[in-house]
């Protein structure tokens, strides 16, 4: 049992902190958000040079070979810095490619890892809030290829990607794990309508309408991707817990600072016992979130897929509630100031709200956790 960080992990943390401090201050970020520009190639390039975009991929496909713990530490730093770049899109799209194609994914991943292209995976649909395999989008084989029809929601990074990875059903019914194919669809395809936006925490995302989008045969990257999708979404879920953990840490320490300096009735508001206990509650939620997130990141390294899924759901169920609580309390303790766009606290709150829902909210993951059987408790 060892919870200490390796030298590499400490260096990773330091490099993120330095990056935020130098190139990603709150002021710079706000200026970014004030523009229409969804993508900053200089920043993205920097992230590639740090090796962050290659972190989650094995060395055999040209990645850094980081563990899920490393990915969590990266996300934690980016969450702390309110980074809006779609790094989660890299994880989702890149990991499913690696998992499905193995070494054959190297060529595709090269551009992703060196930062010359942003990838995107579109799997979520309106028919289900969270179940990854609720795929109603259909892929009908036609002469020389397929036509894809359906709707996709909240595809991270899609507005800045040239090519989208889209899940579509080759056979079976929504909810079946079997029968889902993965298709490479150029963003400019005829019949593909992209409704682009920023998500509530600032990252670009899109809803997609596919109406008889024709793709060639080789656009079908794999024919039965359900299991891989579930695994990759579980990994991303744990990483999101890391992001939320970083956001919560920053939110907590900023709030602690605030109550020590803000005066009302002639004393710092942090001298009121009720507010002290509220901060203690926040503190405990942050620490418990840290524990369960690291637990899930470590469990994912194990060989039991059900244990990994249970761990991911346990972590997300816990962190979703904690993120909501910490965000809400932070705004409450900041009073009017917490309600403004001008202060970072509100932006942390929005990020925490987003992350609390992304890849499944508390109710979803509690239910999922309860439904996944284990052989033994210990």
């Amino acid at each position, binding site marked *: 049992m060892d919870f200490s960080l390796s030298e590499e992990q400490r260096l990773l943390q330091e490099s993120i902190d330095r990056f935020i401090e130098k190139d990603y201050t709150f002021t710079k970020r706000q200026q970014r958000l004030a523009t229409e520009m969804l993508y900053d190639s200089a920043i993205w390039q920097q992230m590639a040079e740090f090796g962050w975009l290659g972190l989650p991929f094995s060395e055999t496909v040209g990645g850094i070979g980081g563990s899920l713990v490393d990915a969590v530490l990266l996300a934690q730093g980016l969450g702390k810095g309110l980074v809006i770049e779609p790094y989660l899109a890299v994880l989702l799209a890149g990991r499913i490619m690696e998992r499905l194609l193995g070494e054959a994914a190297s060529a595709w991943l090269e551009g992703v890892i060196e930062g010359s292209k942003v990838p995107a995976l579109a799997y979520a649909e309106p028919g289900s809030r969270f179940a990854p395999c609720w795929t109603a989008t259909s892929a009908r084989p036609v002469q020389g290829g397929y036509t894809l029809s359906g709707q996709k929601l*909240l595809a991270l990074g899609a507005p800045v990607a040239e090519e989208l990875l889209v899940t579509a059903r080759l056979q079976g019914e929504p909810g079946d794990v079997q029968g889902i194919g993965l298709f490479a669809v150029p963003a400019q395809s005829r019949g593909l309508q992209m*409704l682009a*936006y920023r998500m509530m925490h600032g990252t670009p995302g899109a809803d997609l309408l596919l109406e008889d989008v024709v793709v060639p045969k080789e656009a079908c990257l794999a024919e039965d991707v359900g299991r891989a999708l579930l695994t990759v979404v579980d990994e991303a879920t744990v990483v999101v817990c890391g992001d939320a953990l970083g956001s919560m840490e920053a939110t907590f320490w900023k709030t602690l600072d605030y109550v020590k300096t803000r005066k009302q009735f002639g004393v710092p508001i942090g001298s009121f016992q009720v507010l002290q206990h509220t901060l203690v509650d926040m503190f405990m939620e942050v620490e418990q979130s840290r524990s369960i997130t690291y637990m899930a990141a470590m469990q994912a390294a194990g060989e039991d897929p059900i244990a990994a899924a249970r761990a991911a759901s346990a972590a997300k169920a816990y962190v979703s509630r904690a993120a909501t609580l910490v965000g*809400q309390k932070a705004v409450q303790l900041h009073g*009017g100031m917490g309600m403004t766009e001008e202060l970072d606290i509100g932006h942390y709150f*929005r990020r925490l709200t987003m992350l609390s829902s992304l890849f499944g909210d508390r*109710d979803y993951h509690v239910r999922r956790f309860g439904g996944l059987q284990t052989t033994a408790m210990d």
Partner: protein
Amino acid sequence: MDIDFTKEELAFRDEVRQWLADNVPPEIRKKTSYTIPLTKEEQQGWERILGRKGWLASHWPKEYGGPGWSATQRYLYDVERAFAGAPLPSPFGVSMVGPVIMAYGTTEQKQRYLPKIAAGEEFWCQGYSEPDAGSDLASLKTSAQREGDDYVINGSKIWTTQAHWADRMFCLVRTSQEAKKQRGISFLLLDMKSPGVTIRPIVTIDGHHHLNQVFFDNVRVPVENLVGEEGDGWTVAKHLLQFERTTIAGVADSKKAINNLKELAQEERDGGVIMGDLPDVRRRLAELEIDLLALEYSNFRTLDAVARGESPGPESSLLKIKGTELQQALSQLRLEMGANRSMPWLTDQTLAPPAFRHAATPYFFLRAATIYGGSNEIQKNVIAKMLLGLG
């Protein structure tokens, strides 16, 4: 004990229902039911329609241009109003400064201001909070110095809701530096078009512009705009806080909100199941509806006490605490039902139905409900001190 409405009350309800069905503009009805913020024109336009009908100042006595309704009638009206998709009127005129002018205003002030408030012709805002005086109003600093027949105001007010829409502001200012903290405060009315008034918008975390900071740079206000005596501002403000608390719980709008949620839960599906049949959604809807029932009857009890001449007193803090918590919980459930469909930010470019597309706005803005108007922590201090004799 008896909760049946009389035949007359039921007839009144039917009349109100019919009139609202005929008169609430469809665009407003739609926006309100999805909690999309209204424009100034929409809000004021609707208030003028109400004003012409004589129902805008719904709790005012007839002599000042109100309908002279009983507490029960007001309750019935308010529920019908919410279910008809009509917004609450802005409280600053009809619920706040109006009653204050009735109680403390001169005859001239009454004649000058009350008819325009009741008609929806002048829009008010409230100047209480300051950057360094949030919940601790007694330490406010904006000064009003007497110069001839004018007060000259310097300083700043913050969190001023709809200041950018307002024709007038009522505010608390410091007219004496020497008197004991609270005794140096006076209650003034001012014209927002006065020279020296500037407004800085404050965008809130829902991404909208409701709030402002207002700056006063040698703003001259005639002495006749003082309400009550100089130095009595604290007393006047406290009267206002005590006055009209019958709608503080927000029962009518929460009833409408839960009804909307129940309909939505029947319309939408998650993984092939009607959302209203998912155990978690069903449970949370039931829990919130039960909490609302308790709140509604607590509200009835307060109304009944007021009708029998008792003061609502600190019990209204309970209504405020529980009412705002419920509003927040309802907005949170809608956001969580929306999930992926509620996460795109401030855009109509999504595949989500409007109820989900606009779910984030109330969720974020309603965080203010437990902060403004005396935070819920302060409300608990009030109950502890005034009702329980603690502290």
